[in-house]
Every structure is written in structure tokens, then in C-alpha cells.
């Protein structure tokens, strides 16, 4: 089914340009050459992900389709699209901005919820985002205690970040509204997959789903750009 005419907005992109501090550069230059999709690692494994189509929708103002898509959250942030682009469109920054916009519309919170811990428990507490904690028991069995290896290498047994530095990044987080944004994500109550209806199950990626974030009602996302691909769906 083609999009209905009313879903396209001619001057959406005109209004978009001055916003976002110039992070997002000139998508209207897009030639629709498809080089971005051709070299995309995400498109290689999830065929419905298509940067070219997403730029077209953005420029033509069909923002509904972009924001509510699962595909928006499949980007690898590798920047290959920017490297390949003859018109220098930095599409990875578009994805970044569009994800923020999608969250404002209530999409994608279940993905971000899984990442919030890294900011709260590691970045703001220790000043280091990737901690020395290992989830995989095999890794610990193989290499043993990392602090011993660090000491043998002539480093301190734990990566040192001063208390002053942690106080500073915490204040920056408070000042810029990152803390309140994180609280909003952290306050999300995830629905249980067991209570999910068959219809929801078909659409969702078998992940728990928050019902409401602050004042925003959260929604399920859709495969808006074609059949979901990838190994998992090919077998099913």
C-alpha cells in the first residue's frame, strides 16, 4: 500500500534545517544513489534496513514512517554511509537525532532501557562506561582476575578516576538534563512478555515493552521498510 498523500509534508524539511545546532546536515542534497545501503553492515544482515529510503522519507516529510519503524534502531553507527556518500550526508547523525525524536513519540524505549544502566551504574558512578565486570563466565575462567593482569602490566589494579572528576561529570549530567532523562528511562516499567497478546507478539521483537514513560505513551514499532530479514526470520 502506498502512503496516503496527506502523510507527505512538503515543507517539513525546510523547517528542520536550522534546528539541531547544525548537527544534521543537508539531506535534501541526497541523490538516491544507494551507495549508503550498498555498503551498510546493518543492511547486510537485516535486509529491510535501508538508509536510502529513510533519507527519502525524511526529505519528503513522511516522518511518521521513519519514527515508528524498527529499522531506525537497527543502525550500527559505523559511519560507512557518510564515508561512501558522494554528497557528504552524515546519515549516522540523522539516525541519532531521529532516535531522540522517536523516543519523544514513544518508540524505542525498550531498547534504550537496556543501555541506561551503563550510564547510571558505570559512567556516572565510576567515570568509566565499560567496567571490568564480566558477564561471560568463560572469559573469567580463561583469563582470571583482570586486576592481576593490570598489576603485572605496571598499571594500578583498578582504573583510577578521581572523586573530583566524578563530582564534575555528575554536575554536568544534572545541569544538562541528562540525569532527569535517565530517571525517565529508569522509571520505565517493563511489561512482562508472558502477558503479551499474540498480536503484540507478532509485531514486537520478543522483548519486554514499557507501557508509559513519563507523560509519553509508548508504542510498538513496525517493520516499515519491508519484510524483516535476517537469519532469525528466514528460518521462521
Amino acid at each position, binding site marked *: 500500500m502506498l502512503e496516503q498523500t496527506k502523510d507527505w*509534508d512538503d515543507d517539513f524539511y525546510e523547517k528542520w534545517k536550522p534546528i539541531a545546532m547544525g548537527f544534521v546536515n543537508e539531506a535534501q542534497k541526497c541523490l538516491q544513489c544507494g551507495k549508503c545501503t550498498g555498503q551498510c553492515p546493518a543492511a547486510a544482515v537485516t535486509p529491510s534496513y535501508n538508509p536510502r529510503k529513510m533519507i527519502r522519507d525524511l526529505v519528503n516529510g513522511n516522518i511518521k514512517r521513519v519514527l515508528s519503524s524498527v529499522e531506525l534502531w537497527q543502525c550500527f553507527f559505523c559511519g560507512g554511509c557518510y564515508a561512501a556518500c558522494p554528497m557528504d550526508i552524515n546519515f549516522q547523525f540523522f539516525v541519532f537525532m531521529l532516535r531522540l525524536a522517536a523516543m519523544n*513519540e514513544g518508540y524505542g524505549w525498550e531498547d534504550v532501557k537496556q543501555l541506561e544502566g551503563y550510564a547510571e551504574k558505570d559512567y556516572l558512578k565510576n567515570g568509566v562506561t565499560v567496567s571490568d565486570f564480566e558477564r561471560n563466565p568463560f572469559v573469567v575462567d580463561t583469563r582470571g582476575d583482570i586486576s592481576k593482569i593490570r598489576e603485572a602490566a605496571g598499571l594500578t589494579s583498578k582504573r583510577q578516576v578521581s572523586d*573530583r572528576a566524578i563530582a564534575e561529570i*555528575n554536575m554536568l549530567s544534572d545541569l544538562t538534563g541528562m540525569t532527569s532523562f535517565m530517571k525517565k528511562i529508569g522509571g520505565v516499567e517493563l511489561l512482562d512478555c508472558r502477558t503479551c497478546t499474540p498480536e503484540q507478539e507478532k509485531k514486537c521483537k520478543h522483548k519486554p515493552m514499557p507501557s508509559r514513560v513519563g507523560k509519553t505513551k509508548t508504542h510498538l514499532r513496525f517493520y*516499515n521498510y519491508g519484510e524483516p530479514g535476517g537469519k532469525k526470520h528466514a528460518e521462521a
Partner: protein
Amino acid sequence: MANNYNNYLEAYGKETSRDAGDRTLNYFSELFSMEIPMSRMMKMMPGMVKFMMAGKGERDDLMKFMPQMMPMVKQAITGKKEE
């Protein structure tokens, strides 16, 4: 599976892309605004207080900043820029 990739039209109901787009642009203009109105100033206060409690060096640095801060507070309260 076939119907799965067009239901976003139903999900948005009667809203057009213009509505969703306007909402998005409002969100961004708020997010990237450089102005510090009273509400934003109030949100910044707890962070500064926490920083002040963290230690003596922190308190001294923040105190040095206070003279710079006063005109901003005034501006936030009155809502206009002083020249």
C-alpha cells in the same frame, strides 16, 4: 507478516506527518535552546548543590563562579536580557 509494515498508518490514526513533524521540531527546539528560563534554572540547582557538597575545592570553584551567575539569575527571573 504481509500487513506488518504498514500499520504505522493506523497507529497514528488521523494524525498526519505534519502533526508528528511539528511535535518533533518543537521537541528539538526545546532541547537545543540556548536560553536559560526560570524552569531550567531551577532544574540546574540540585546539581550545583550536590557539587558544592562534594568537597572544599569544589565549593571554592563554584563560589568563584557566583558573580558570573548573578546576572543570569536576574535575567531568568525578569525574562529579559540585560545590556
